[in-house]
Structure formats: C-alpha cells, structure tokens
C-alpha cells in the first residue's frame, strides 16, 4: 500500500493494538447548563505523542484540556491518565502542567520566580531550584531577563516564560492551550519547531489545542479534528489531509474542491460518478462508494492539472474559463469557472523561472486529474 505522505519520525504506537493509551477519554460528556461542550467522546493518546486538538472555537477542544488539568470535571464518563482514573483528583495533585492561552504569568513575580513557582510548591531545595530555573531560562534563551517582571517583556518573551514555567516541574504531560496564538507569523513558525525539538528532547507527551490547521499539521504526530463536542477524525497529518473521512474534515484542513453527484456504477473497486457539473468522474470506490448513492468527490487543488488542450482521457476532465489567477511565488493558483458556474481551484507549482506563453485570464482551459488523486465521500 502506498504511504500517505512523509512521517516525522518512525513512531506509531496508535497502530499497535497492544499499546496502552497514556491518556484515555472514555465516553466523556461535559455539559454547561444546557450547552453540551463535549458529547460522549472517546479518545486515546499515547505516551510521548505530540497530539493536537483542532477545531473551530466552541468545538469543545479547550474543555477537553481543562478536564485533563482538573479545572473541570466531566458530567459523565471517565478520564484515565497512565491507567489511573482522574476523577476527583484536584489539579495540584495531577502530574500535568498547562501552558495557558493568556500565559497567566504572575504579574507580581519576576521571570525567575514565575519559573520557580511550581518548584517551590514541591518543596524542592533552594539550590536545586536555582539550578533548575537557570537551566529552564537557558532553554528558552531568557537568562538575561531573569529579574524582569512580566510586564517588562515582549509577547514572545512572555510566551517563552510561560513555556519554561510549565515544563520546569518536568510534568509527564504538557497541555498547551493555543500556545502560539498571540505571536506573529514568523515567530510562530520558529516556535513551532522549537516546541517539537523540546518535546523530543524531554520525552514528554504534548497535548495542544489550536484552531490553526497549519500549526497542527506542522507539529503533530496525530490530530483530532473536532466539531461541536465530537471528534470527527483522528489521524496523522497526512491521513487527515489525504484521506479525510468527511467533507467537514477535508474542508477544515487545507483547500479542497468538492463535486456533488450520483454514483452510477462500481466495477473492480472503481466507481463511476456523474457530477452535477456535467462531467464523468472515475475514482477508487473506497469505503463510501455504493452504486446509485448520492456522493461527493473531493480533490485538492494541487492534484488538478491545468492544460490548454483537451487531455486524452474520457473521465476526470472538465472545461472552464480562467476566472482568477493568484501568483504566490512558489506556486500559482488558478480559479477556473466551469460552465455550470462552479469555481474550481487548481494550483500549479512554478518549477521553472518564467514560462513562454502563460495561461491568461478568460482563457478556456481543461482541468484534469487521475483516478488516484481524489476521494469519494458520503457526507
């Protein structure tokens, strides 16, 4: 079987059926008054995993994190950490630390005292605290700011203090609530890689909440895409991107074109679909293809080819007019308007410097793709 994309490291405990999950949400429900934030959710996360909870705001991802930290108790269901039930364990007794979205740095304490706060609670010896704090500040490159107060730091520096403070106690599980939300793009990308390195270096399990799909894709071993209190799909970034289980997931991660239609025939594992945009699609039937059923065909923009000549294939080709061109440097995005009125997005990689006769606005072009490139979805 073909592999779906590259993996960051050869690490896949979720594929091993005998592996014991490190974090287990078992049929967890959380209701606030009449609002259901988390709805009968079951989710397993493994030790040393970098796990992302991805979804729009209000989908329940932060509530999951807060239940792990102990700030909320589930209305129903159980949460296990390393096999131990977490029910009625107060936050200060959980081997879990959290990096808060607002950073929640103590304004009356210096940077060093903020980092030392948790260690002092543990009753660690003073010399040892000083040594650990020094190491943590070195790790986040803030040694020369040790005696500053939080309000004297920039946003990026505060974020690093918050990170240093949350890992100072060497928790086995670090929870990160939108950790990079307040940073600008460049700093965010840099920090993403720092977080990944740190996680591997310390051998921690990371559980991170984000609404930024790029962030989740970059950093995670696995991603759970959430919607309205339920997990829609759990998988590696490549699985989520290349094999989404629903239009919701496909749409949430990256760009996607979807064509609606009816499956006319299934033969040798291949499905023929009549798209309502007036062309024939042939693709792998997959798990969702049933003859006569209403279905959706999803295809990513970079998997569509744009040509002037009609390609030599009966299926998977449709004609349209170039509606918009966006040159992004590394690639060019074509918005092509089909005769049915549907706009289809196709991206072309700019592998050469300059093209002799580039495709221009309002030109008639053909869009085509191979049967392997798209995915048949039921909903």
């Amino acid at each position, binding site marked *: 079987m073909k592999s779906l994309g590259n993996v960051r490291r050869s690490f896949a405990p979720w594929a091993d059926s005998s592996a014991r999950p490190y974090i287990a949400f078992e049929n967890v429900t959380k209701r606030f008054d009449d609002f259901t934030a988390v709805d009968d959710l079951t989710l397993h996360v493994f030790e040393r995993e970098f796990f992302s909870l991805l979804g729009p705001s209000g989908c329940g991802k932060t509530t999951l994190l807060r239940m792990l*930290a*102990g700030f909320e108790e589930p209305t129903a269901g159980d949460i296990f950490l390393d096999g131990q039930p977490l029910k009625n364990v107060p936050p200060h007794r959980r081997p879990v*630390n*959290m990096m808060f979205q607002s950073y*929640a*740095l103590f304004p009356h304490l210096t940077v060093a005292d903020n980092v030392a706060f948790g260690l002092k609670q543990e009753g660690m010896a003073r010399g040892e605290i000083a040594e650990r704090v020094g190491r943590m500040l070195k790790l986040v490159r803030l040694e020369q700011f040790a005696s500053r107060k939080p309000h004297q730091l920039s946003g990026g520096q505060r974020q690093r203090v918050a990170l240093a*403070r949350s890992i100072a106690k060497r928790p086995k599980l670090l929870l990160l609530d939108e950790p990079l939300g307040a940073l600008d793009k460049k700093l965010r990308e840099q920090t993403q890689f720092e977080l990944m390195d740190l996680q591997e270096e310390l051998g921690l399990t990371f559980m991170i909440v984000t609404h930024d799909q790029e962030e989740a894709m970059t950093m995670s071993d696995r991603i759970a895409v959430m919607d309205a209190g339920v997990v829609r799909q759990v998988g590696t970034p490549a699985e989520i991107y290349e094999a989404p289980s629903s239009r919701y997931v496909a749409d949430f991660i990256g760009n996607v074109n979807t064509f609606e239609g009816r499956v006319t025939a299934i033969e040798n594992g291949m499905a023929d679909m009549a798209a309502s945009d007036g062309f024939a699609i042939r693709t792998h039937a997959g798990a969702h293809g049933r003859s006569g059923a209403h279905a959706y065909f999803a295809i990513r923009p970079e998997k569509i080819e744009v040509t002037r000549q009609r390609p030599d294939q009966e299926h998977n080709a449709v004609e349209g007019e170039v509606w918009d061109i966006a040159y992004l440097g590394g690639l060019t995005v074509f918005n092509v308007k089909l005769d049915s009125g549907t706009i289809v997005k196709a991206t072309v990689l700019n592998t050469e410097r300059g093209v002799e006769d580039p495709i221009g606005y309002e030109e008639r072009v053909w869009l085509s793709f191979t049967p392997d490139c798209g995915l048949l979805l039921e909903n």
Partner: protein
Amino acid sequence: MAQPEQANRTGGSEAFRRIAIVVPYLWLLALFLLPFLIVFRISLSEPVLAMPPYAPQFDWSAGWQEFLEALSQLSPANYLWLAEDALYRNAYLSSLRIALISTALTLLIGFPLAYGMARAPERLRPILLMLVILPFWTSFLIRVYAWIGILKPEGLLNQFLMWIGVIGEPLTILNTDTAVYIGIVYSYLPFMVLPIYATLERMDHSLVEAALDLGCTAFGAFWKVTARLALPGIAAGCLLVFIPAVGEFVIPDLLGGTETLMIGRTLWIEFFANRDWPVASAVAILLLLLLVVPIVLFQNAQARAQEKAK
C-alpha cells in the same frame, strides 16, 4: 508655513495646562491650607470669655508693632496641656484602637463580600454593586439612628434573639464599644468593599488556575495569588476606613457609652461644651499629624514599589 500656527496652538494648550494645574492648587490653598493655618493659629492662643473666644486677636489696622506684639503672645501651652493630661492621651490611644479593630473587622467582612461579587456571574455584578452603594442614598445620620432602634434593649435584635430562644433576657449592646464597632463596620463597609472589588474584578482568573496547576492547594493559590494581587485594594480600603474612623464623632456619640473615649468626641466637647477653642484646635492639629504620618509613609512605600516595578 504651518509652523507659527502650530507654535501658537501648542502655546495655547500650554497656557491651558498651567491653568488646569493651578486651579486645584488654588482650591487646596483656599479650602485646606488656609483653614488649617487658622486652626493652627487658634491652637496657639488662650481661651477667653469673648467673641471669638480666644486671644490674642490680630488687629490688622493697628500696625506692624502691634502685630508682632500679638504674635509674641502665641504659645504652645495647649500642646503641653494635652501632653500632661492623660485624658487626651487615652482618647487618642482609644481612638486608634477602636479604628484599628473596626478596620480589621471591616476587612474580615468586606473581603469575602468583594470576592463573592467579583466571582459572581457578570450579569449579576452591577446589581450587587448597586446593593453596596444603595445605603448612601439615605442620610448617614439617619442610618446610625436606625441602629439605635435595632440595638437597644427592647430593640429589634434583642426581640428577635429572645423570640428564637437564644437568650432569656435582653443583651446590653447599645452604649457599649460593641455598638460602636457595629456602627463603624456597617457605615464604612462600602469603602472597604469597592476598592477590593475593583482589584479582584480586574484579576485574570487563569492566574489562580495556573497556581493550582503548579501545585498550590486551593488555599495556597488564594493566599499567594488572589490575596497578594488584591493588596493595593486592601491597602486603599483599610486607609479609607481607618482614617475617618479615628476621628469619628457621630457613631461613638450616638451608639457608644459614656466610657467610649474617642478623640472626635473629646474635640466636640472641648469645642461646644467647654467653649475652649484653642484646646479643641490643638486636639485637631494633633489628630491630623497622627494621621498624616502613616499616610505619607504608606504613599512613600507605594511610590517606591512602583519605581521598582519600572
């Protein structure tokens, strides 16, 4: 070309700024410093049976020599008198004690109130705030009088306690120090609650969660974070209660007993009953000094803390 015009404009705003600064200073000069000087001057005089009842009098038309003559008659005798007579010393000490205890009691009641208000659902907070401020709509004097009706032997409180059977005969509360404490705590509670509420309401609750997350117990997080960050509000509230409580006159006069010794009352007696304006003035000046010292110390400490934070 636009330059002169601009210079003109900044010149105008500069003048305005000066006036804006001068006005409050003039106000303070006319309504605080001048009366203070007059009181100070009376405190150095002698009581006489005349109108006004003190001597010497400055006769501004009599000339320079006469003025110096009158000036030389001023003496600190009244202050020596205050120092000699144990009554005044006891009155000062007792006022400080009553003010300190009442401030502590007000804090004890006010902090949980403010905390509860700050943690209440957002839509309830304006209503709770309103309830705290509401008593100000009734005259202070009337509210203190109302406490007489509550605390007197056949008053509401005793009737209630006897009705539920906690006590067999009425408690003597009115005209004791206890009644004074009740009166002060009741009257000054809003001055404690409001500044503490203001600091707690601004506080980010995730700070408490962070403390819990880092291993604090609920009480530890409260002590190390909530109480610590509410300190400016607590200090402001304590000063707002302590300072007027030291000089309080109405409450000890109406609710206190004959043994309730407070400096405000002593001052009133000297002034109205004994018609000894010079001694009354000296009492007032000493009271002011007594209160100014801790306020200045506190402000210095706060300024230093702010300087350090920068």
